[in-house]
């Protein structure tokens, strides 16, 4: 990121604004198409300044979404799981038989996906083969291992690690509390959950998994992002981005870095895909771009009332940063070259 000068400057003039009718749930780049999942059940596809709107969940609400740079997968309160690709193709991949809310979706290797509805966790391979198991409680956090067909399920009092194609019961890792979001480190060595009790919890995997407690948050750390090299994990939930070190044995006993301290709570954080630069979005609508190495800050968006940052997406080369907000506003920052 040599293009970012050290002195604090504003990048606001490089932001192209976007407008949507409702709360931005998530967003992702599908090639050069920006897909934006909206709470009103639609997905907006922005491409070359033209917007196409897809009714992914007609007459229903869109609750969760995930993407793998090829497809955006959404889950709704209509019990349906839908995939949208960059060429506007819409495909229903799953439907809960009891029409329960889809509480989480995740995308894995080889075009596999998974979703949860109530306690039922379903994994689907590209072939369409479905496997399911009942978790101990409803599950809001799902994450695939970076390699292999293995799913982590966050639930009350711990996580389950499940091989959908194995007969064996899922491996259970216990830690008291309500585990919400789930993430797997890019090297596959660590798993981390966010907790309703304003904390992160991690396990270093191995023959005897060890615990990592990451506490001290004033709010729930719901947004987690790994650095490009997998050595750092950023988290929201405080009045700064809290970044934990995952070199060696992980963060247990180590202090986190704090970047972008402001008098507003960080609601979203997203590491640049190729450098130690992080996009920090706050609940007052402000966005800063922060370089971790020297803590220099660039303003991307000033605070905007009722427009908390709810989603980020870096494109693959790291040239464009898209953001979405609670009131449907959004934008695309194109970094100056």
């Amino acid at each position, binding site marked *: 990121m040599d293009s970012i000068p050290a002195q604090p400057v504003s990048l606001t003039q490089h932001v192209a604004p976007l407008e949507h009718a*409702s*709360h931005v*749930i998530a967003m992702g780049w599908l090639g050069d198409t920006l897909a934006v999942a909206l*709470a*009103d059940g639609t997905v907006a596809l922005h491409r070359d300044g033209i917007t196409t709107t897809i009714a992914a969940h007609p007459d229903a*609400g869109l*609750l969760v979404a995930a993407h793998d740079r090829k497809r955006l997968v959404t889950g709704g*309160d209509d019990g349906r799981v839908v995939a949208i690709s960059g060429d506007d193709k819409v495909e229903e991949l799953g439907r809960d038989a009891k029409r329960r*809310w889809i*509480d989480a979706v995740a995308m894995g290797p080889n075009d596999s996906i998974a979703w949860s509805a109530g306690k039922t966790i379903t994994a689907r391979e590209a072939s369409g083969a479905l496997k399911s198991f009942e978790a101990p*409680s*409803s599950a*809001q956090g799902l994450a695939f291992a970076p390699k292999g067909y293995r799913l982590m399920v966050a639930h*009350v009092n711990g996580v389950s690690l499940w091989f959908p194609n194995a007969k064996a019961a899922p491996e259970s890792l216990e830690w008291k509390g*309500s585990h*919400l979001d789930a993430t797997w480190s890019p090297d596959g060595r660590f798993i981390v959950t966010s907790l*309703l009790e304003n904390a992160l919890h991690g396990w270093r995997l191995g023959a005897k998994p060890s615990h990592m407690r990451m506490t001290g948050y004033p*709010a*729930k750390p719901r947004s987690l992002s790994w650095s490009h090299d997998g050595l750092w994990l950023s988290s929201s939930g405080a009045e700064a981005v809290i970044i934990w070190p995952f070199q060696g044995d992980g963060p247990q006993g180590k202090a986190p870095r704090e970047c972008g301290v402001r008098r507003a709570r960080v609601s979203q954080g997203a590491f640049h895909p190729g450098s130690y630069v992080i996009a920090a979005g706050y609940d007052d609508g402000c966005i800063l771009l922060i370089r971790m190495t020297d803590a220099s800050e660039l303003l991307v968006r000033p605070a905007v009332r009722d427009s908390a940052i709810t989603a980020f997406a870096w494109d693959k080369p790291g040239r464009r940063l898209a953001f979405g907000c*609670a009131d449907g506003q959004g934008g695309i920052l194109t970094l100056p070259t």
Partner: protein
Amino acid sequence: MRGDLIRILDGLMKRKGKFDAIIVETTGLADPAPVAQTFFVDQDVGAATRLDAVVTVADAKWLQDRLKDAPEARNQIAFADVIILNKIDLVTPAALAEVEARIRAINPYAKLHRTQKCDVPVSELLGRNAFDLDRILDLEPDFLEEGHHHHHADDVRSLSFRIDGDVDPEKFMPWINDLTQIDGPSILRAKGILAFKDEPKRFVFQGVHMILDGDLQRDWKPEETRSSRMVFIGRDLDEAKIRQGFLACAA
């Protein structure tokens, strides 16, 4: 349970503007307190929603039996801001009076509607602001039942205390904090309007179990007599101990 409620409210909050209100229907024998507490202990829920009121539907014919065999039924009556006493056509006027007296012994503060087929205007159920500190205008019972002392054998009941004048906040705050921390599990609801020494504004608070929410409100009006009053609804409350503790806070 709380996690599920927060998750569902989270989903709904992203669609605000698409609905007027959220009605949380619990199972028939649920304890309403954990549901109510969620609106005060969870930051995200607290920031985006406001708990309006707790409504309890009671069956005029069977309530007396449930009060005997189900402690949850007593909790639901005690906790309520609005009670719909339904199926009144199935009981005699004498039996209706009897069941109302039982309800009033537990909770004289709730707004009570006598109904058939729960026919009550929606405006009586929504927009009650029962947990809004600004709306705690007075603590007069909805219904003054002279004979309610006859029912003191009930383990769930309401207590009210009054000091004709100011209290010392330096004494009151530690006392109410200790009381709610120690006796919180027994206290279903608490409300108070207090005159603090040298403070022109009324101090109002309300609580659910251990959770207290209090603030200085409007000025005492010239025609109002400065007095300090508290109401507790709870189970096995030690009336003498609470009275003594409160009276010791007098300024």
